[in-house]
């Protein structure tokens, strides 16, 4: 299986503080990969580096063979990124924003419209696209970001808390869509605090704590190997016990 995302010793510091410490991962096509960790663990920083928003302080990262640092625009054409808590242009309408993203990706208007229509229907945004985004609720903004991330048909999806603010039908639609895109050969990196959803949706998960990878594997296998009763229990144990895992990362469940 083709490897779509390769991280080698990826690191990022803010001032003197290391937010991500030497993260190494391979994510193949067709995989939904969960990124877990407590607040401040480095998940969003990792996502921002993958989305080319932040430059890594060290290490390398490639998406579909393109280096994040040297070929950022090639990477941007391949990825669809849904950030956590984006502050949209309040005076633009949803449609104007989607048109901007469409044009930046150089997707022909008719093709974008064809791709956009089922997403707009599924998210029930049809009547609101003409309104200024400043009037949108949190869930509507999230839906718009999802459509913007999907309308250029990216091979790699980077989803940072994608269910945040979504209503139940939209959540279900998104879960189905993630599975569908993985089945079509895409790779999805899914960062979330909702472990129950991650356990169901993701093929593999990585637990990051204090910037370091402390556990990696299929959720069910990790739970079975650890002897814990659930992923939540395992997560709590690992993040409480992080010193031990960090000291000997090879012992982390894989």
């Amino acid at each position: 299986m083709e490897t779509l995302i390769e991280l080698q010793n990826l690191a990022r510091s803010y001032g003197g503080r290391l937010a991500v410490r030497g993260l190494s991962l391979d994510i193949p096509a067709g995989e939904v990969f969960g990124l877990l960790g407590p607040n401040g663990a480095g998940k969003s920083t990792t996502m921002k580096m993958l989305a080319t928003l932040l430059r890594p302080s060290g290490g390398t990262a490639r998406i579909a063979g393109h280096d994040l640092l040297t070929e950022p625009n090639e990477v941007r054409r391949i990825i669809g990124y849904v950030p956590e808590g984006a502050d949209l242009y309040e005076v633009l309408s949803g449609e104007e924003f989607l048109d901007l993203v469409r044009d930046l990706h150089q997707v022909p208007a008719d093709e974008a419209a064809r791709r956009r229509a089922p997403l707009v229907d599924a998210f029930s945004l049809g009547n609101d696209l003409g309104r200024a985004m400043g009037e949108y609720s949190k869930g509507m903004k999230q839906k718009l970001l999802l459509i913007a991330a999907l309308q250029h048909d990216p091979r790699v999806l980077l989803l940072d808390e994608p269910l945040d603010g979504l209503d139940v039908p939209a959540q279900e639609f998104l879960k189905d869509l993630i599975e569908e895109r993985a089945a079509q050969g895409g790779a999805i990196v899914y960062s979330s605090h909702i472990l129950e959803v991650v356990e169901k949706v993701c093929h593999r998960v990585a637990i990051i704590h204090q910037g370091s990878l402390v556990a990696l594997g299929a959720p069910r296998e990790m739970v079975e190997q650890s002897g814990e009763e659930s992923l939540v229990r395992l997560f709590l144990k690992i993040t409480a016990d992080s010193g031990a895992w960090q000291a000997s990362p090879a012992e982390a469940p894989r």
Partner: protein
Amino acid sequence: MSVSDPLIRLLGADPAVFHPLYRVQRLLLQRGVRVVQVRARRGLFSGASPYRLLCFYAVVYGVSAMALLFTSKSTVLGAVVALTLGSAFLLLVVVTDNFDVLVNPREALVLAAHPHDDRTFLLAKLAAIGRSLAVLAILLFFLPGLAAGFMLRSPVAALAFYFGAAAASLSTVTFGLLFAAFLLKTGGRAGMERMLPWIQGVFQIGYLVVVGGQRLLGTLAATRPAELGPLPWALPPFWFAAPLELVADGPSAPAFARLALALATVGLLLGGAVRWLGSGLTERLLEPMPRQTIPAARRTPARRRSLGARRDSEWSRLFALLRVQLRSDWRTRSEFLIIPLMGAFFLLFWFPATPGSGKGPLMSFFFYGWFLVLSADVLTRSSRPESLWWILSSPIDRTRFSLASLSMVRAFQLAPLFVAAVLAQIRTGSPWPLLLATTAELLALGDLLVLLGKGIFPDFPFSRPRAEGGASGARTALTLVGATVSGLFTGVIFVCSLWGAAGALAGAAVFFLLRFPAAFWVRRRAAAAAESLELGVPAAA
């Protein structure tokens, strides 16, 4: 394929990225202009975008400058005034609006993950900003140029004025943008975010002082060039009027020197801008701001943080909220400062009291009152009204909290205006009994007007979104009500002044007695507004 594509490529940008970004930046500029606050939903300006209103103001400026050129003794000095006011107008737009469009920290999460390059992104922004400013410059200077040509009976004079105006506009705009670049380079985006509110606030006040100085500029326009003396001719506005001066007065070495200075200014600023575009801008515009950790020395001590809670006083809680607003919202900060500063300016310099009259001109009292009525409104609006939830969900007396804004206005806005008004009275050289009586009259009037202002604008403090707050026709109407109230009391002062010190004392007594029914009315209005407030739903004024 657009006709501009070759030029865009020549500048090292990608047309496919440039066009969509330019389109959006234009929309942001047109819809997000903050210099203009009033945007009526009904009536004459209904449907007008803030940018169109800004254009309307530019035309008003142009008409005023044209009138000035027609009436000035020297067309060249009239042109100097027109160029000064027009450039100040442009710089205000650059500093208050275009800075934010040029470096918008919120764009990172929205745009950075989509294909772009920094150079194209920056050029698209500059092109959108340049276009909007070019339109404003034309509206500002077209009519004064016609006036210059008409006054000197020479189309060449009009062209010379336009040449100078173009050079002045280019210099002003480039200076503003380079200043933004300087901030960006020295402090990074985080530094710029910290400094910009202060710069914008100070500049807005400075701008109003320039506009308020029209009397000075009007004096300049009524002066013959020979009466000026050599010093003013060294000032930049005179440099940019040099082309017109050469046409009007014929060639002279000083005029050529001033023209050279104008051209050198344009050259230097444009050179700096090109250099910046070429290599100086190293920071990626769309990179998110670095996380900031507050230095230990700047952290608020726990003792001070809990002050409001320990004293359990709505006043101290509102004061804490005001401090947050002043620190984080440059518009609140500048509006909060403008009322006492502009009021004091009007009282001391614009309508100075006439020596020996025993009373300032009535217009100064009118402005004193009007500013005080409006001062209540400043504390009702906020960029982030939704952050009030922690106030609304805490066990406070909402009415007392709302009425505490009266004390804020008295302390920070009435007090400086009152001091300025008293100083203006002292300058008249009135006998001390009259002075004391007038002082009492001013104090009683001021307090009554602060109360009435709160009654007219009873909204809960910082509860209305800023954009919406400026937008309603109702607010404009209430502003007019404030002007009417102030005008009415100015009439009372005028009548009382006919009886000297005794009349002033009688006036003070009238204002003092009116305070009681006013306080009752204000309390009812504020209580109703405070109790009916829901987050996200502006209280009915």
